[in-house]
Structure formats: C-alpha cells, structure tokens
C-alpha cells in the first residue's frame, strides 16, 4: 500500500478563519517567501443560480464589477492596479464568481478598499452596460470559434435536462443580447452580500493588523437576506444520449460526459483517482492505448472535477487520420470495461496517488494558487475538506476504482457529443502582396 508522506493539512495549518458580524468569512494565511499579497473575494453565485432566460448573469456581473462605483469611477480599478504595479482578474464558474488582486506587500491594501466598495456600490449605468454587453458577446463568440466550445456546450446541455449546469457559463447568446441593466442590478443585489462571500488573503502581511483593517473596511456593510436556494435536481438518466454537432472542421472531436456525484461524496475520491490513472501522464491507460498503441487520437483526457452539485465526469478525445469516431469510442469503452472488471493494478493506483499528492504541493507555490485553493474549497464546502483530502485519496483501493467505474462510467449514464464536419470548405485565400 502506498503511503502519502505529506498530509494535506499543510495547506491549511497556518490558515486563520474569521467570521465578521455581518457574515463575511475571512481566510488569512501569512506567506513571507516573497513580498507579495494576493487578495481574493469569492461569491457563492455562478451559473447554477441562473434561471432560464437569465443565463450569463453571473458572468456579465463579473464584467460590470470593473465598470466602476461612485468612489472608484470607470477605469479607476485598473488604473489603481497599474499605478501600484499589480495584477487583477476575475473568473466565473458554475458554482462561484471570484476576483483577485496581486500586489507587492507595501501597497496591497487598496484592494480591500476596492472589494468592500464594489460589493455594494457597483454602478449599472445603462450606457456602460450596453458597451460592456458588446464585449461579453465578443467573448462568447471567441468561445464558439474554439474547436471545443460547441461540443462541450452541447454535451452539458444534453446531459443535464433540469439542473442549470446545462447552461453555458457565459450564457446563451439570446439571453445576453436581451439582458438589461435593471435586471443585472437586481441580480447583484440578490447575491452580493458579505454573508454570501469569502475574503481570502495570502501573502506577506501581519494577520492581527490586517484583520482589524478588514473589520474596519468590510464591517459596516450590512448583511443581506439569505441568497435564494437553488432547488433544482437532475433526474436520473435512463439510457445513452447522443448529440452531433456539425462544424467547419474535418478533425473529429469527442466529448463524453458521465453523471457523477458532488464534492466530498464518498465516491468522489475514487473518481478522481480514476481520472488520473486513465489519462494523467504518458504511462496512463488511455494515453498508452489511444495515443501510443492505436495512434487514433492526438490527445485524450479524463477528468472528474469537484463541484457543488452532482456533476459530470468528462472524457475528451481528438481523432486523427482515418480513425473513425466509432473506433475511438469503442476503445475508450473497452478500456473502461477493463477498469470496471478490476484490471487496475496496485502499482497503477499508487502511481496515480503520488501524482495527486505531488500536484497538490507543486502547484501551490504562488500565493495566488494558495488563495484559489482556499477560496474555492471554502465556497463549495468548507476548508476542513482540505485537511482530510490526501488521507481520503490514500484510502482509495483498487476495488473502489473498479466499483465507481462500474457505477458511473456506464453506457446508460453517458452523453456523447461528437463534432463532425459540416462540409464547408476553408482556407480559401485571397491575397495581395506588395512591398
């Protein structure tokens, strides 16, 4: 039996969790290696909270939070970031929306002022809203021009009939087009409250001093009514679902989704191991079979990611040469059957465990990465999850892997989206060179 030598609690051992009276959760972790501070704020709102006809609201809101408040006018947030030599960005997922600043540690506290202010004072000036709508639509189109944009979108839309994980995070084009500043502001008021947020600070600061500053900056923001509960549940799937997407490419691409449980579900750890031993690294099963032996794909991936509600275990493959999608699918399914019938060796599983362990450590060197881990897990579940994470991974047995493969990665539980050529010709060139 493999034993993982580094407990995952190392990621949380110096973390202090403080809850302000208004409900804001504050996670602080001092890291003095570099003179840097990352500050992040996480809201428990993402595309899972969006109703039909209102999709894309969480993501659009993320854009609007850079468009200014009464105190920090349009452009000021970026300008302050520039003047202070920092970086900022934000991202939206199914389950959350997160914003971050990276600054040198002698000037980072401006980020606290900005986050506290835009938690409640975001301006929804109609002209600004309409201008930003164009940017969001261009972002949506960039996604559709990516070869994986459509297969991924269709896979989720077909795999989920009821649960909002069916909707693209950026939203459906028509919903974005008809969005209004008023509706967007109402959505903001519903979800942006201290009691629906987590502030994460990681880096070169003094915790005591900074906690009192946080209390002064955020403490006066009143808590809001509890965010509406998302009550939709996906009914069980009874049979394979197949969706074809016609597109301009002649390269076949395959996106397969299997319904799988939520974060911290007892089976979630074995599913993570399954993803790793199927496709992580050149020694992995699907790599060895499809890339190495059959040479039928340029790449293949299998992944289970943690989410708040039951999610999908994704398998992706990009076909090549004369190999048909049917042939690639057959090999993937055959490999899954082998795993389900108990073919995985102890050595394979141990290797996968070490990959997870090392990744957990190797990918946490920057303060931003540490803040992301803490913020994401706190938002989904609570950081205690991290403490026992590697020991739960370590407890997974070869039988567990076979069992979850049988239970989840089966025909009746899968949705298969295939990208096939629409017959269009490309590379028509018109050229004019003068020099």
């Amino acid at each position, binding site marked *: 039996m493999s034993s993982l030598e580094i407990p995952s609690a190392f990621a949380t051992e110096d973390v202090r969790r403080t809850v302000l009276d208004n409900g804001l959760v504050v996670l602080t972790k001092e890291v003095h290696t570099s003179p840097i501070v990352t500050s992040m704020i996480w809201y428990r709102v993402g595309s899972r909270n969006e109703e039909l006809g209102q999709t894309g609201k969480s993501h659009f809101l993320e854009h609007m939070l850079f468009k200014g408040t009464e105190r920090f006018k349009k452009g000021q947030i970026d300008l302050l970031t520039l003047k*202070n030599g920092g970086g900022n960005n934000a991202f939206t997922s199914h389950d959350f929306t997160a914003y971050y600043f990276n600054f040198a540690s002698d*000037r980072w506290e401006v980020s606290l002022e900005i986050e506290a202010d835009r938690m409640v004072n975001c301006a929804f000036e109609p002209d600004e809203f309409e201008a930003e709508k164009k*940017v969001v639509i261009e972002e949506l189109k960039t996604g559709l021009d990516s070869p994986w944009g459509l297969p991924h979108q269709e896979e989720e839309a077909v795999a989920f009939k009821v649960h909002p994980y069916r909707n693209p995070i950026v939203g459906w084009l028509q919903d974005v087009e008809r969005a209004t500043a008023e509706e967007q502001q109402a959505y903001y008021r519903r979800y942006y409250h201290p009691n629906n947020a987590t502030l994460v600070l990681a880096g070169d600061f003094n915790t005591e001093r900074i906690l009192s500053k946080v209390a002064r900056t955020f403490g006066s923001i009143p808590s809001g009514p509890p965010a509406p509960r998302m009550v939709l549940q996906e009914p069980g799937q009874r049979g394979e679902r197949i969706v074809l997407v016609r597109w301009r490419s002649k390269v076949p691409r395959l996106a397969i989704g299997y319904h799988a449980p939520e974060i911290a579900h007892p089976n979630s750890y074995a599913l993570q191991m399954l993803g790793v031993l199927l496709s992580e690294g050149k*020694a992995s099963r699907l790599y060895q079979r499809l890339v190495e032996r059959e*040479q039928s794909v340029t790449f293949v991936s299998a992944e289970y990611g943690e989410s708040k509600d039951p999610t999908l275990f994704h398998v992706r493959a990009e076909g*090549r040469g004369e190999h048909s999608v049917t042939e690639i699918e057959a090999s993937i399914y055959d490999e899954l059957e082998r795993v389900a019938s108990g073919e995985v060796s102890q050595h394979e599983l141990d290797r996968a465990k070490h990959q997870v362990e090392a990744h957990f450590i190797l990918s946490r060197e920057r303060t931003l990465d540490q803040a992301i881990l803490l913020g994401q897990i706190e938002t989904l579940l609570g950081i205690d999850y991290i403490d026992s994470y590697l020991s739960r991974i370590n407890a997974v047995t070869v039988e567990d892997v076979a069992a979850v493969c049988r239970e989840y990665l089966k025909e009746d539980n899968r949705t298969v989206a295939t990208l096939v050529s629409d017959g269009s010709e490309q590379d028509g060139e018109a050229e004019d060179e003068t020099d």
Partner: protein
Amino acid sequence: MKPTELGLRRTFDVHSHVLANGLKVLLVENPSIPTVSMNASVMAGARFDPESKAGLAIMASRLLDEGTTTRTSLEIADAIESVGGAIDADASFERMVVSAGVLSKDVDLGLELLSDLTLHPMFPQEYVDKEKERTLAEIASAQDRPQVVAGWAFNELVYQDHPLHRPSHGYPQTLERIERNDLIEFHKKYFVPNNALLSVVGDFQVSDMLPKIEKAFGSWPAQPISFPTYPQPVRQTGKRTKYIRMPAQQLNIYLGHLGIARTNPDFYALQVLDTILGGGAGFTARIPQRLRDELGLAYTTFASITMTAGLDPGRFVAFIGTSPENMKLATEGLVNEIRRIIEEPVTIEELQDAKDYLTGSFVFAFESSPQIARFLVHADVYGLGFDYIEKYPQYICAVTVEDISRVAKKYLDSENYTLVVVGPTNATD
C-alpha cells in the same frame, strides 16, 4: 499610497559553476516548499533547422523522452509519474529545454532522468514514425483555430526568407523528409555540455547538489561546435496583406511588422511603450481602453513589440478578435493608436504609471522555483547578468517621454505593415 520608486523585490543568491566539460550550472536555494525545479537547456532550436527539414528541432525535443539507451518510453514515464513528478522536453526557435519538477525527496531520480534524456536519447524508429504522424494531426487540429492560422500567416509575411517565417514545428512536406538519422545528427551536433546550461532551483543545499550534478552530467564529453548562419531579417518598406476565409464568428486580425532583438538597448523604453500602447494592467493601455472598453469591439485586443524579442528580432504585433462588421473600425483603431504614439508625445502621467506598473509588478516574475529557473536561463542567454533584479528598475526609471517618441518613430510603422485577417471575410486588399 505612493509606490516606492524602485519597487519591492525578492532577493536570492545565484551560485554559478562550470563543470570541467564546460557545462554551466546555476543554482538557487529556495526552501519555501519541498520541491525542486530543474532545466537542462541546449542552445539550439528551430532557427537552425534546414528549410527543407523544418520541424527537426521540435521533433527531436519531443522524442527525448521516448526511449534512451537504457530506458523505454514507458519506463521513463512510469519512473517519473510514480513519484508524482513531471519531466518534459520542449523546443523553441532558440533552444531546447528538458525540464523536471519533483518533490525534493526525489531529486536524485529527477537528475538521473534529466541527464538520461539529455545525453542518451535513442530516437527509436517506431517513435519517429509516430511523432511525424502525430505532429501532422496536430497541425490539422491547429488549423481549426483562427488565431493560430492568422499568427502563422503573419510570420510568413513578416519574416519572408528568415527561419522565423516558419511554424516552429515545420510543414507537412518538411516533416515527411525528416529521417531518424537527422535527429541523431542533430543531437550529436548540438547536445554538448559546452553548449548547455543547467539551472536547478528549489529545496536543497548547494553543497549537496553540486556532487549530484557532477555525477549526473560530469561524464558528458565536450566537443567543438559551430552554428549555421543566416542573414538578418529586413523590415518591410511597403504594405503586405493577406485575407484567409474561414467560416467563424469572429475575424482574427494581426497587424504589425518586424520587431527587435532582446539585446537591443532600447528594449526597456519599448517595454514602457508597450505598457502604454497595448499591455499593462487590465484595460488601461490605449488599445484595449479604446477598442474594448470604449468601443466594445473585442474581448481580446493587445499590442506588443517586446513580448517576442529574442536572439533574433521578434515581431511588433497588434491583435484584435472582432465581429466581421467591425473590420474597418477595428483596423483603423489599431492603426490610429500606433500613429498617435509615433506622432504625439505620451503624457508624463502615462509614462509614470507605466514605470510604476513595470517596476512594481516585476516581483511576480520570481515567485516560484520554475519561474526562477527560467529566469536564470534568460539571464544567461541574453546577457542580463544576475544583478538584473537590482538593475531592472533602474533601466525602467531612466526612460523619458523623449525616449518613447524616439523609439516609437524608430521601431513602429503605421503605414508599412503586414495585415492578416482570418475569418468570415470577403475582403481582398
């Protein structure tokens, strides 16, 4: 909050050694987390590929981990993955880098594999055949991405006969011509210790690490080495345009021309210019501010001349991805901003903001061991010196409004540029 003028920085000691065979070794102790990051860099890349066998260097790099004299491809993968490490070989136009990342307890294995892949690759015929087929398939796949297609076409027009006109992985017809023997010869010629650099950063002590490195790399024999020569690229004197039709949502537009080498003394003034024109934090630079924030033409738009500066001159590139109806507004918008920075001096405030940004954010380039290991290679290749961390803020702070005007006039051109448009276009210039 007034930024400190020179910015905060992380300091570390660089231990520099040269083994008897000429291998340069650069070490930095970084005990912050229990990992070690190592790079073996060989100073040869796709720019040395013969035109008829373009893609040779990249193919060689991708075959380094597909079998050595004592290990099969699968044995290499199994060995490194079993300790949760990663080993990877990659090539650019300038150099080949074998990099490994391991937990510090596995440093011996990491060094052993790094040495084995660098010194003893076999280039098995079976894998040569596989790699050709796979690269061909990847080229076909990449052709589905309009921005990639636009970038390739842009380089062809900007560099003409210079090696950088090619995609670094070559073309289908040149890949076909590469034989196993070419790869063996490439390796024999360039993979010599006197043409290599080893950088190791992480949780170790220099006194322990040096004997390990001596053991892993000491027996690598030195050899005389020569490099192919080729003429310097010439900046265009007229306009070049190319439109490639692709059924897509957006047009991907590249506009620009030949840029500068990393060793150009005006690099720092141009970095400040980049920050004002098309980079910086968020959407503060002129191009994203005007074309994204004000006009809503794009999600992605930027410009830079320093980003691609290397041993050879890089490119000055302005990019925008936009809906087809915005074609005219978008290209005119890019050209207007280029013209404006050539013709009008930037404001004192723009200059100061850009300097504060560059000196303040410099610290983020040295946060992790892999970043520091990469910096050591850059510092050596471009002759930056290991006191670069102290000097960089001084270089930036010395830049004046007049410098920006001078370098804008010298290195940017709002008339004689290459324009490539890929997407749903019917335009012919």
